[in-house]
């Protein structure tokens, strides 16, 4: 593909090609809807650049294989949908403690995996940087950013997409994006230091080799925790609009945020004082942006396609200065894998208008049911 050439492409292929453009040379995964096509495209494209894609026996092995590839210094990734990522959580925790730059793709079933992505289902004091693209062209950028940030911080980065990210098409350009340098991987091993009295150890356990610095698990965990505080200070990414005089501020991430932004633009054109905040990094969460927006807003509304998860972070950001109310909800197609009827500009508009007119206590329109329920 030549520079600047735009190609109409499915999101899952765009993500795989963006990862390869970023230097990813190893991928292992296990098929699961709606993530499967990401695995398919890695399988198709990686061998051509000298890379490897393994269809692992389960998600547990997929993440283990990526772990081994990462330890050699390669850029490597895995992924699944949230259900499959649940199986990988133990490894995610330990890979974070081993300070390996894993990139993870979640093509989620809606937005039910916000807690999993930002709080984690694994054990211990670990954090992953989480990036949530709103569409395919942003997914191309954030996929490449994910590899950069993973290497910069020696910390896993998760890209949170969904059925629409993976399965719709958009005209995109896939060129390698230069985000600047990353530290040399002096920790990566290839066997060449075996027998030199300076052999390497990639371990989550905080111990060192005999005769070498051996901080112990307590100091090791404190070091990683301090790194996470630093990431919180430097890697917040957020987009917002129309906040200056907004009476109602809607917070949304990922694909639904694009719907929210569209509706807010429409309502603004009609003279309604509404604005939006779109967290691009879910961790670190843009608390400051929410805090500022809540200072002047009458109501902060959270539109998310789940029972209400990000709303906890929005409340922490609002600090009680404005009421925070959820205006999204559970909405899936009949299979549970895809997109529910709530993700429709008319429904989004009706729910935003309900809180904009009636405030935090307003009664919301009834959630639309999917075709299976309505029959």
């Amino acid at each position, binding site marked *: 593909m030549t520079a600047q050439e735009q190609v109409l492409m499915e999101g899952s292929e765009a993500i795989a090609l963006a990862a390869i453009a970023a230097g990813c040379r190893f991928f292992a995964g296990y098929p699961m809807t709606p993530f499967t096509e990401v695995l398919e495209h890695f399988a198709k494209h990686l061998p051509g650049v000298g890379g490897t894609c393994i269809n692992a026996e389960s998600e547990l092995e997929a993440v283990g294989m990526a772990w*081994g590839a990462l*330890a050699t210094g390669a850029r490597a990734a895995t992924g699944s949908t949230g259900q499959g990522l649940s199986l990988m959580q133990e490894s995610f925790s330990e890979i974070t403690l081993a300070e390996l730059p894993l990139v993870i793709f979640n093509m989620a079933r809606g937005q039910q995996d916000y807690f999993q992505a930002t709080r984690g289902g694994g054990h211990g004091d670990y954090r992953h940087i989480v990036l949530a693209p709103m569409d395919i062209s942003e997914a191309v950028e954030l996929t490449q950013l994910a590899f950069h940030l993973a290497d910069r911080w020696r910390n896993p980065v998760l890209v949170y997409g969904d059925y629409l990210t993976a399965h719709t098409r958009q005209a995109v350009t896939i060129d390698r994006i230069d985000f600047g340098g990353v530290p040399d991987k002096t920790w990566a091993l290839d066997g060449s230091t075996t027998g030199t009295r300076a052999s390497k150890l990639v371990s989550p356990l905080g111990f060192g080799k005999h005769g070498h610095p051996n901080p112990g698990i307590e100091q090791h965990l404190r070091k990683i925790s301090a790194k996470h505080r630093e990431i919180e200070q430097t890697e917040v990414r957020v987009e917002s609009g129309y906040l200056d005089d907004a009476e109602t501020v809607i917070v949304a991430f990922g694909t639904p945020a694009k719907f929210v932004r569209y509706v807010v633009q429409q309502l603004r054109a009609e003279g309604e004082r509404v604005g939006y905040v779109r967290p691009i990094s879910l961790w670190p969460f843009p608390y400051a942006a929410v805090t500022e927006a809540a200072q002047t807003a009458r109501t902060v509304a959270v539109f998310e396609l789940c029972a209400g998860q990000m709303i906890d972070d929005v409340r922490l950001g609002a600090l009680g200065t404005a009421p925070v109310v959820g205006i999204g909800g559970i909405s899936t197609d009949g299979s549970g894998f895809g997109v529910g009827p709530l993700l429709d500009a008319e429904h989004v508009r009706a729910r935003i208008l309900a809180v904009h007119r009636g405030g935090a206590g307003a009664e919301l329109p009834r959630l639309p049911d999917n075709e299976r329920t309505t029959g």
Partner: protein
Amino acid sequence: MSTSVPLGPVIDTTVAPDAARKVGDLTPDLLLTQEHHMCPGCGEPLVLRSFLEALTELDVAQRSVAVLGIGCYTSFGMTMDVDLIQALHGRAPSVATGVKRMLPDSIVFTLQGDGDMVNEGLQEVIHTAARGENVTCILLNNGVFGETGGHMTATTVIGQRTKNSLEGRDAEYHGYPILIGDLLARLDGAAYVARGSVHNAGAVARTKKMIKRAFEIQRDGGGFTFVEVLTMCPTGWFIPTVDGPEYLHDTLGEVHVMGELKEGGRIKSTEELYAENVKRQHEIESRLAAGGLEEEA
């Protein structure tokens, strides 16, 4: 298969050796210290020595990467002078797979216990073998979870007493042990499968040969190789330290029978291996009766 005769070279202790040797003279090059963190009577350091010496003797040390599971042997990670990745309990074979795919010219091996490999990570080792992944998995099999204090594993033999089979493993209640070597030998991707032991000097020497053979096959791109080693765990077996080798031989060794289960495409049954071992034993005894052994069989 019962024997009280040592299966190895007989050292004449009635005369002084030509030159005195110190412990340091016998320390493998790839050990950072002579200390280890194991209990008295543990068999695992013997396996450590075996594979470290094998790497040096094959001149592949400086392209070798180890992946450790979680068990007592995890502490070897501090003392092995080998590039090393610490994996999760059970997950070493897939980590080794990722390493090998990125570094096809390296020698990659896992070190796992029976709890790690045969309990927690059984599907990992099976699929790695089935893929014919060009790595070596080394199993330290003592039939118990040594690190947690002597609990039953998938390889604990019938009748063996552990902390959660106090009256001995009962097939009806606890199920049967898994003979992992036999299981793996039947997979097309497995090029070499062997079971050694460290209950006496002869067995240690034979085990080291198996490990060397496995590394050679890997070096030559031959596919998945597997060496299981029966090891003593007197602490986890609740027996006197000095009784460890005999208990290993008579208890685990009777079920997990030592020998090459698959070599050159040929699979051998437990019965064949048993018969081979009996024959080997008779040969050694007759050679001993005829005046001693120059080197082990």
